[in-house]
């Protein structure tokens, strides 16, 4: 009997081991393919700024600082006051979203202030991307938000204050709660038909 239970135990151990081996996680498979990324490599590439703003860098700026940089680097495409040109319109349009001709700008439409920082940082100005330092990006973000009447000219934007800026159209999106987005049930969507 003891012998049998020993055998049984051995059998169980072997079975479990075989199962482990058969289901070796992919981390252990495909040896020698790819390599560990270093913290320096990740830091150099990780430019994303999410809505919590936890990735925002040190630095700060106001609309007053931003006005000068805007005139030099942005006005040529977006117009002297953000009214648009060959580049998109950045200012105005509030109250038009329910009209026959809605004007969608950063001020009237964009739901998150952090997105303004992220986009300037990754994509602006065209042809000189990567040339702006964080203080300049905070200042430009402040200038655009100020021109839209969202913050005051003297308000200082930095890693703490920027994510707290409430955008006028934040609740204009469906579903409003970000955590409900992946949930088809809560979205009330039919595939391809989400009015």
């Amino acid at each position, binding site marked *: 009997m003891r012998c049998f239970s020993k055998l049984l135990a051995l059998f169980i151990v072997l079975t479990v081991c075989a199962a482990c081996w058969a289901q070796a*996680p*992919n*981390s252990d*498979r*495909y040896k020698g*393919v*790819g*390599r*560990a*990324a270093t913290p320096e*490599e*990740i830091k150099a*590439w*990780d*430019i*994303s*700024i*999410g*809505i*919590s703003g936890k990735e925002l860098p040190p630095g700060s700026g106001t609309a007053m600082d931003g006005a000068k940089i805007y005139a030099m680097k942005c006005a040529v495409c977006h117009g002297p006051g953000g009214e648009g040109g060959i*580049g998109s319109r950045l200012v105005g349009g509030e109250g038009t*979203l*329910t009209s*026959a*001709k*809605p004007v*969608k700008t*950063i001020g009237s*439409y*964009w*739901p*998150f202030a*952090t*997105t303004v920082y*992220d*986009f300037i940082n*990754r*994509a602006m100005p*065209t*042809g000189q*991307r990567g040339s702006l330092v964080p203080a300049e990006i905070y200042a430009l973000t402040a200038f655009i938000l100020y021109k839209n009447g969202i913050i005051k000219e003297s308000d200082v934007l930095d890693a703490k204050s920027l994510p707290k800026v409430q955008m006028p159209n934040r609740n*204009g*999106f*469906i579903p409003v709660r*970000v*955590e409900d*987005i*992946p949930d088809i049930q809560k*979205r009330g*969507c*039919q*595939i*391809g*038909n*989400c*009015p």
Partner: protein
Amino acid sequence: MNPKRVGRRRFLKEGPVLAAGLAVGSIPILSARSQTPEAEPPARSSASRNSYGERSRFEDYSLRRLGGQQKSDYGFRNPLQDQTGIITPVPLHFILNHDRSLQFLPNDPPDLDPKQHRLLIHGLVDRPLMFSLDDLKRLPSVSRFHFVECNANGNPTGPYGEPRRAVTATAQDTHGLTSCSLWTGVPLPLLLEKAGVQKSATWIMAEGAEAPKHFKSIPIGKAMDDCLVVYGQNGEAVRPEQGYPMRLLVPGYEGINSVKWLRRIKLVDEPYMGRSESSIYPSFRVDGKSRWFQFEIGPKSVITRPSGGQQLSGPGFYEISGLAWSGGGVIRRVEVSTDGGRTWKDAQLQDPIARKAHTRFVFPWEWNGEEATLQSRCTDERNMVQPTKEDIAKLFGVNVDYFVTGANQINHFNAIQPWKISSGGSVTNALFL
């Protein structure tokens, strides 16, 4: 000299020779002994050949902007009406980039060296990893047919709606922002599992290496389902315009998710809300609200032959042929109506029939020479049926006129497309007739 003109002249000159050749089959056998072989066809000039191969100089279809205009538009449209089967030739795959300077210079994608290019997977993972193209090619590969479609394909309203609504619109104008390829690469779940996804990861953020570094947030459920990191397209390397040396392929989702020139995937716990996903791609409604993160493309089909701009040569037999696709899976059924929607009959689906891929349908038709309206509607594996424009209007809570007069772009406009055949055989866009 214009090579096209030379081509026409030569064709006119040689036309009768060809016609005589074709007629041989119908000449009684008795007289065959007196026939001499037809003249040799002229060879292509060596100047028109290269070691990569070129199409015949008689074929001149190409990528075009909407309505053939040079005016700014979303991107460059694929001439669906000139294609057979389900594969879009790689040079004709539609092009749309998420940055103006790229969008307006379609032949100017980033010039990425595959030896230098890397894919970084990091964020909420146990082991941040770096992969080269060679690394990806060592891993188990899959090849799958999938379409990629812009969510604005077929939009009838807003600044770019007019040429799509025009009676002169071709299938390229109405549906040209979709393409289908055999994509080859590594399943994304394999790469993510190798990095060890942590429980708190609910989204991935995929980013390209191009100058403005377009990125898109995708729910982890989709990332761990059927997404691929691809390096092959229709048997060759992914073209620079399509993301060389590697792109993300998110089957069935609107094209913006299939990030080109892929260089970084970050596992995160919320969508990143970049400019495109939070402020450009949401669908705008009449009540001023917007639906963001519309993921899957709905069931859609279009007859490509006969279609807008084509000309029937006279009454008699024609095979009606077209494409159907759905982000919801495989196309189960396509029905065709030749009488303006009064009656519908099943079309035949041609192999290969793949999930989230263009599917070719054909339908035999005898044209009696009278006015007719041709249309197709498809049903996918989830029993979702392609809607009429009236169905979509009802869903949006608007009058159908809104699609003509509205100022807002309608995304995911997958309405049934009618083509009108005149008694003279000309084919026109009848979506708003």
